[in-house]
């Protein structure tokens, strides 16, 4: 090519028919695309902050009795009022969030880990698959709350025991989900290619199967988290859960139940906190489900 002015035909400028797409910042764009994750995540984050910083949010000792000031209506001094033993409901509700979140997240974690192990074993070892799954079916046929009550009746009331009992009631669902995903993943050509490449089975599970079960597992974990919080509150409400000495939302509601018609605020405030938290976690789960895998949205 000799040096010279290249003869390009330049395209004329396009007329401004198309509107310029709106530029959004990264955070604004994320909120726009996944509003449910944003709202759910925001509320869960607030609940976490409340639980962590409960002592610094103008609370008093949630277990301090003050018979002289019992059943006070909500006021500037007692934001959510006081219960029939004069304890500050605001402080009790804020401290109660610790129990709920601890139970919710612990159960989600324990049930996911246990369910994943059993699901992977069941999906890979076909000889024992049927036996394991029938046991899981058996566990799933008992309503989780009843199973948790039965397990709590066998043990002493404590937060650990509540976590264990609800985890046992919830993990069969995870194992079933994971088994299904494993069964479909192990037929994938990339798994066959890995076998042909001489990859050992444990490595195949670790590198090819588990990373691809993560998305449905996370979605399932959020739903378990929400359901565990409700179960915990239910157990506490009927006196089979967290010991009464520890303020939990279920305990506060159980104690306020007798006074429901005259002093409804004692039940109202823990109930509204429980509802908002469960709603937030479920919103987060819904959002994750849609964001992580559109096909999964139809399946779950």
């Amino acid at each position, binding site marked *: 090519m000799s040096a010279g002015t290249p003869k390009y035909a330049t395209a004329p400028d396009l007329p401004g028919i198309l509107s310029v797409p709106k530029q959004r910042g990264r955070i604004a764009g994320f909120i726009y695309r996944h509003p449910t994750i944003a709202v759910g995540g925001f509320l869960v984050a607030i609940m976490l902050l409340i639980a962590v910083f409960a002592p610094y949010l103008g609370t008093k000792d949630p277990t301090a009795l003050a018979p002289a000031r019992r059943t006070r209506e909500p006021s500037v001094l007692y934001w959510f009022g006081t219960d029939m033993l004069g304890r500050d409901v605001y402080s009790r509700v804020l401290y109660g969030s610790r129990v709920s979140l601890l139970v919710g997240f612990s159960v989600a974690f324990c049930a996911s880990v246990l369910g994943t192990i059993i699901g992977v074993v069941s999906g890979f070892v076909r000889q024992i698959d*049927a036996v394991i799954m029938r046991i899981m079916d058996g566990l799933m046929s008992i309503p989780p709350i009843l199973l948790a009550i039965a397990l709590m009746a066998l043990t002493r009331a404590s937060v650990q025991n509540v976590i264990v009992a609800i985890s046992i009631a919830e993990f069969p669902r995870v194992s079933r989900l994971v088994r299904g995903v494993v069964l479909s993943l192990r037929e*994938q*050509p*990339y798994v*066959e*290619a*890995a*076998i*042909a*490449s*001489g*990859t*050992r089975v444990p490595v195949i599970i670790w*590198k*090819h199967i588990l*990373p*691809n079960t993560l998305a449905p597992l996370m979605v399932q974990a959020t739903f378990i988290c929400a359901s565990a919080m409700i179960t915990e509150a239910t157990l506490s409400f009927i006196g089979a859960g967290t010991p009464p000495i520890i303020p939990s939302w279920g305990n506060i509601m159980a104690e306020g139940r007798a006074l429901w018609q005259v002093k409804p605020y004692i039940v109202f405030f823990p109930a509204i906190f429980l509802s908002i938290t469960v709603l937030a976690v479920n919103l987060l789960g819904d959002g994750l489900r849609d964001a992580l895998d559109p096909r999964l949205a139809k399946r779950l």
Partner: protein
Amino acid sequence: MIADPPLLEVNALKKHFPIYGGFLGQITAKVYAVDGVTFTIKRGETLSLVGESGCGKSTVGKSVLRLFKLTEGEVYLNGERIDNMPAHRLRMMRQRVQVVFQDPFSSLNPRMKVRDILAEPLVNFGLVHGRKDLTEKVEALMDKVGLPRDAINRFPHEFSGGQRQRIGIARALAPGADLIICDEAVSALDVSVKAQIINLLADLQDELGLALLFISHDLATVEHLTHRVAVMYLGKIVELADRRTLFADPHHPYTRALLSAVPVPDPLAKRQRIILKGDVPSPINPPSGCRFHTRCPFTSDRCRSEEPILRPVGDGHLSACHLD
């Protein structure tokens, strides 16, 4: 011929898949996916396995890969019997046979980077020493299949179908195999990309002396890169010949029907199309005698009762038909 033993020898291979049913999950029927297939592949040779979908071509490929246990038959690779090999020896044998799958989307783990995908076989067979060596070897593989080196840290979804298939080919080349099974490796690609990938495979074969078992349903594709062709119908090979013979002088009626269905890029060309009637019979309950008799235009009573064996009809040309 004795001086040049085949790289792969498949002898009377059978693979039947059980169908479970009933209350206790007992075996109620069997799918006769592959029912007695015999062939050999020499070093550096391409054998194509063609046939309709469901005729068992892929099952033959997976049997050679030992992705499952065989029902019957023998498979020899480099003179070593691999169909009954114990698991620990099988793992090292896998270095010699690799596979490229049809679907470039599901054959790559969506959560692994190109580097990790290509590193997997290298690490498994102990072919690399240290991280630097690994990167060099991975990059060399990418060069070989025509992928840009800067793609090393990308995920499969960032590539087009043709590029993904190149990744799949690079993975198959990684362990330095003697035989690569291309299971419909170009069927999912569009025409121009298909040509590129076929040329790539042909170049690699020349360069590395690879043998290919090329599984395809498309005779037009096969014609470009194969040395010999085996035509399968319902789990059996019905005709086997070198490319020239098979395309010029097909013996088996099924092969003739298949060839007449290949489109010719000439609108004025007069062709006699042999239209087969009916569907492929079910491999669960294959027809008696010659399996093709239900659709063959030349069926006789003998075809219905007696199963034809694959026998020579010319130099290196085998056909399984009573009429020959």
